[in-house]
């Protein structure tokens, strides 16, 4: 009774119903092909490019296998100091954000009433999603010599600070930029800790500090590690904040990559620098996996 077209789609449906592997393959292959052909293949191209070199005269990429990019990075002290500066900043910013996010998220998840929690979470959305460049530009307006902070200081008769284009300014701005990325996973980790566990701990005689230190911290550790993946990776790959906030003598790995790829025309050298960031981040991700952070992402 069904029309031929209808029975055909019904038959296709039946065929698919009886062969779950076929349905699975059909739904998964387009997204997986996208990732294989575009993302992984591009990463592979970049990793191979890292072992090529650029002809100094013609600017063409010479497809001859060489370690010269890596030996240049290892042996020229300027690159060693760039890598060290980037890593130090990533670690310091991550620690700063953990120190701020822990008490804040605890307060948000376990102390305030439901209504306040909703209000504060809504307020958090703003800095989390507001444009990255808007936030960086706001800090330029705050820290520059004629900006808001020196303006307020001189009105109050205080000595004015000159933070613009310093490493301290970069530390403040990075900590500001990535703080919401730390708060969100730490907050959801606190939210998942049942209240009964905290009551049990205090019933057994632990003070609030001991409960916090020995019951809560271990339970939110995956959230902290998940947040630190973001703070670490985002600092590692940035070139805009170092350029706009840090000034001329504060190059990061990102700036070196940007300069050699887009200004210097030395793609293989940029690829070698990116290779090094992948190795650093890969090591960090392995550590995070070991700490069980992926369940918390």
């Amino acid at each position, binding site marked *: 009774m069904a029309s031929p077209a209808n029975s055909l*789609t019904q038959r*296709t*449906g039946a065929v*698919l119903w009886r062969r779950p*592997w076929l349905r*699975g393959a059909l*739904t*998964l292959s387009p*997204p*997986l092909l*996208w990732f294989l052909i*575009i*993302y992984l293949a*591009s*990463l592979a*191209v970049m990793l191979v*490019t890292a072992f090529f070199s650029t002809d100094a005269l013609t600017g063409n990429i010479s497809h001859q296998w060489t370690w010269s990019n890596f030996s240049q990075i290892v042996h020229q002290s300027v690159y060693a100091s760039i890598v060290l500066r980037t890593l130090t900043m990533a670690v310091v910013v991550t620690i700063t954000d953990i120190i*701020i996010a822990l*008490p*804040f998220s*605890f*307060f948000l998840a376990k*102390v305030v009433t439901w209504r306040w929690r909703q209000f*504060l979470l*809504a*307020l958090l959305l*703003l*800095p989390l*999603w*507001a*444009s*990255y*460049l*808007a936030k960086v*530009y*706001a800090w330029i*307006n*705050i820290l520059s010599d*004629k900006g*808001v902070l*020196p303006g307020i200081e001189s009105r109050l008769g205080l000595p004015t600070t000159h933070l613009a284009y310093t490493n301290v300014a970069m530390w403040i701005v990075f900590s500001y930029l990535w*703080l919401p990325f730390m708060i969100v996973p730490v907050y959801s980790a606190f939210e998942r800790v049942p209240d009964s566990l905290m009551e049990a*701990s205090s019933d057994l005689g632990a003070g*609030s500090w001991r409960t*916090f230190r020995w019951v809560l911290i271990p339970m939110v550790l995956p959230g902290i590690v998940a947040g630190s*993946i973001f703070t670490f*990776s985002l600092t590692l*790959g940035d070139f*805009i904040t170092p350029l*706009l906030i840090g000034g001329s003598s504060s190059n990061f790995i*990102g700036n070196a*990559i940007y300069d050699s790829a887009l200004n210097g025309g030395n*793609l293989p050298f*940029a*690829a070698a620098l*990116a290779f090094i*960031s*992948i190795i650093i*981040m890969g090591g960090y*991700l392995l550590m995070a996996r070991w700490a069980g952070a992926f369940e918390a992402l």
Partner: protein
Amino acid sequence: MRLSTFTRLSLAIFAGLVILFLIVPLIVIVFFAFDASNVQTFPIHQWTLNWFSIAWRDPAVRSAFLLSVKAGLFATLIALVLGVMVAFGIHRFKFFGREAVSLLLVLPLALPGIVTGLALHSAFNLIGLPFSLYTIVIGHATFCIVVVFNNVVARLRRTSNSLHEASSDLGATPLQTIRLITLPTLSTAIIAGALLAFALSFDEVIVTTFTAGAQNTLPLWIFGAIRLGQQLPEINAVVVGVVALTIVPIAYAARIASGDRVKN
């Protein structure tokens, strides 16, 4: 856990300071957009709406804005289709390497953006693909897929499969089941994922630097303008516009998601 009044009070003060730290820079940027002076100095003496009309009439800002919207819409569309598919695949089927697939999806967000950007740049360079709207879209879609995936897979985990089985048992074709059962149960998760993906794309600057060539998206225009140190008050107006434009879909997405939590 019983907290002393002192602990509660210090936590509340600390939290208030953190909120101030997070919000004040955004307030500053809004205030300066209405500052009549050419050089931004504090305190502000005179107010104006002039910078908004200057920004609105600036052809460079307009074309950058259009490019950003186009790239965002295209990237969101691709991320939507692929993100929903991979969410279904991961949720419904048990297969070898499932964990690896979820890991692969977060990789563009877990690895520094500059790595994704440079990788795509090298690949386009190798195959001789000229930079265009499509090269920007390819980069954006790649890191937007995971946003859609996360929203949809979270919803799938909370809805039961029996509805789909009942639909097939009652004689619906796969397409009918998708149209009448799957899409309605997932619709808000899909919309929220799409809004977040669009906001992410609209604001992205690091990957875009490497996939845009000589074109300017709105973030790239802002970056260039700050760097050159020209058109400073106009930047304020543009930046406030961008924040307003991204916050609206995000707030809407958050509302959908929270309504969802109450319902369940």
